[in-house]
């Protein structure tokens, strides 16, 4: 999303640019991309996650995804967009935006950002802010109170997402200024969500019965449906981050697609070798790993690089999932950290490698002027480290806070009855109603 911020740099100082023309083709694509990224959250991710939990908890997952999207949207209007993308003040300007765009001040029908309406840029970015906390749901699924979940998600958006987004994508963000390559959210979205899910899983402790009792997905067809939607929606996620309908966007969706395919095939191959059979859950999980991992790299690498990135994603995320759940016995319910967190780290790193234009068939679009592979990897490592550390610390503190205020976890009886009945007074399925 390099261009975003470049564009913003130019635009922010003077609103007079608003008169400048918008490009209808770029606008058409970003309108579409906004719909696609919303589609990833609702119903894509909701179904992907919902199918994986037990029948007694599926509605709780769906409601959580919906409620997060709604609450984040209102926060975005109030101050979120401004804190992420308005120019910051003085010393803190590298860390957090100012309030000059609170309540979308100045985001009128005529305001322009780059070659698209600023209202569209704000809408598009909102869809990213929505899906990030929704991803975390997978870490604490099947045991968190709804009230705690909602409070935590709002606080987390304000305290974690908005600052990190500013660091990486705002023109005055400190990581942006260092030249961090994160095209569509390896650090901003996947690392923050993955790390937060891990911390939440640790702090909430495992679901009752874990790990002896198998907690099988209640509806794998729902998960596969959601997976297909995620794949399609990711075209908007990565392709839209070019903020234009051009070669950059086109190449972004092509490499995104290749990495998804490679990740899926790798995960399936490992299962096939190890267990004799490739599974549905395996192929779609590998696909998500491939998609998450290519995300930061998608605007910088070529198809050959994408193939390698996807294969590495499938391999590493498979083993990370296995290690975390089976060896360390951490109950990150839907494996958010090993897939998104690890994928985001891997991808941010590999963006620094495969952006190089000197790798033959594995070449990317090349580094910024004056950048070398060594220095770029250094910046990528710094970005990863800062994001991981900041997210882990803040998430821990916020969860402690929420625990104090409303408590984190439902009582054991409610956990065994399921969250649908106890948190939402509903059952998902009623095939017998006469």
């Amino acid at each position: 999303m390099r261009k975003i911020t470049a564009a913003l740099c130019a635009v922010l100082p003077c609103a007079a640019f608003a008169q400048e023309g918008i490009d209808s083709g770029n606008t058409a694509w970003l309108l579409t991309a906004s719909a696609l990224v919303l589609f990833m959250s609702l119903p894509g991710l909701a179904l992907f996650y919902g199918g994986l939990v037990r029948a007694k908890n599926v509605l709780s997952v769906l409601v959580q995804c919906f409620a997060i999207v709604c609450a984040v949207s209102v926060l975005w209007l109030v101050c979120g967009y401004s804190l992420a993308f308005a120019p910051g003040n003085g010393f803190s300007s590298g860390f957090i935006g100012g309030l000059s765009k609170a309540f979308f001040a100045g985001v009128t029908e005529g305001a322009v950002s780059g070659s698209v309406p600023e209202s569209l840029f704000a809408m598009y970015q909102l869809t990213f802010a929505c899906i990030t906390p929704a991803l975390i749901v997978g870490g604490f699924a099947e045991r968190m109170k709804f009230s705690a979940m909602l409070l935590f998600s709002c606080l987390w958006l304000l305290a974690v997402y908005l600052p990190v987004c500013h660091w990486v994508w705002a023109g005055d963000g400190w990581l942006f200024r260092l030249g961090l390559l994160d095209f569509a959210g390896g650090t901003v979205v996947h690392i923050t969500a993955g790390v937060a899910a891990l911390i939440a899983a640790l702090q909430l402790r495992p679901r009752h019965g874990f790990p002896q009792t198998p907690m099988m997905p209640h509806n794998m067809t729902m998960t596969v449906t959601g997976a297909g939607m995620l794949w399609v929606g990711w075209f908007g996620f990565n392709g839209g981050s070019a903020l234009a309908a051009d070669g950059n966007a086109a190449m972004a969706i092509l490499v995104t697609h290749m990495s998804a395919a490679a990740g899926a095939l790798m995960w399936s191959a490992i299962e096939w070798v190890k267990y004799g059979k490739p599974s549905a859950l395996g192929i779609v999980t590998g696909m998500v790993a491939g998609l998450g991992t290519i995300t930061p790299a998608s605007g910088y690498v070529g198809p050959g690089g994408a193939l390698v990135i996807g294969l590495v994603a499938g391999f590493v995320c498979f083993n990370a999932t296995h290690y975390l759940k089976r060896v360390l016995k951490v109950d990150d319910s839907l494996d958010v950290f090993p897939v998104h967190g690890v994928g985001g780290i891997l991808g941010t790193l590999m963006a620094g490698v495969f952006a190089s234009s000197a790798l033959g068939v594995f070449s990317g679009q090349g580094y910024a002027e004056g950048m070398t592979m060594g220095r770029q990897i250094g910046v990528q490592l710094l970005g990863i480290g800062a994001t991981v550390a900041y997210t882990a610390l803040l998430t821990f503190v916020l969860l402690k806070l929420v625990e104090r205020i409303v408590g984190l976890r439902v009582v054991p009886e409610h956990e065994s009855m399921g969250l649908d009945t106890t948190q939402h007074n509903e059952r998902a399925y009623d095939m017998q109603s006469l």
Partner: protein
Amino acid sequence: MKMLIAIIKPFKLDAVREALADIGVQGMTVTEVRGFGRQKGHTELYRGAEYTVDLLPKIKIEVAVAPDMADKAVEAILKAAKTGQIGDGKIFIYDLDQTVRIRTGESGIEAV
């Protein structure tokens, strides 16, 4: 009257139904159940971990028959449901105190 309750492998349902029809059994009730016995379940994959699933899907068939038909019916089920492998199932036979047909109120053997 006797009530035969057989637990069989799901894919044998059609065969058993036909076998019973052949000897003149006119009604039955079928329920989906899960069970285990000697047969101990199978493993399933879940993101890189294998789990054992103990309870396997089975079909329960309930057939009420006149006492003199019971043996023939057991015979028919045995033959149709057998694969010779574990998990083939069981037949449980109960005495029925009484049977009533709701439509007519008839009871006893005519009601079967």
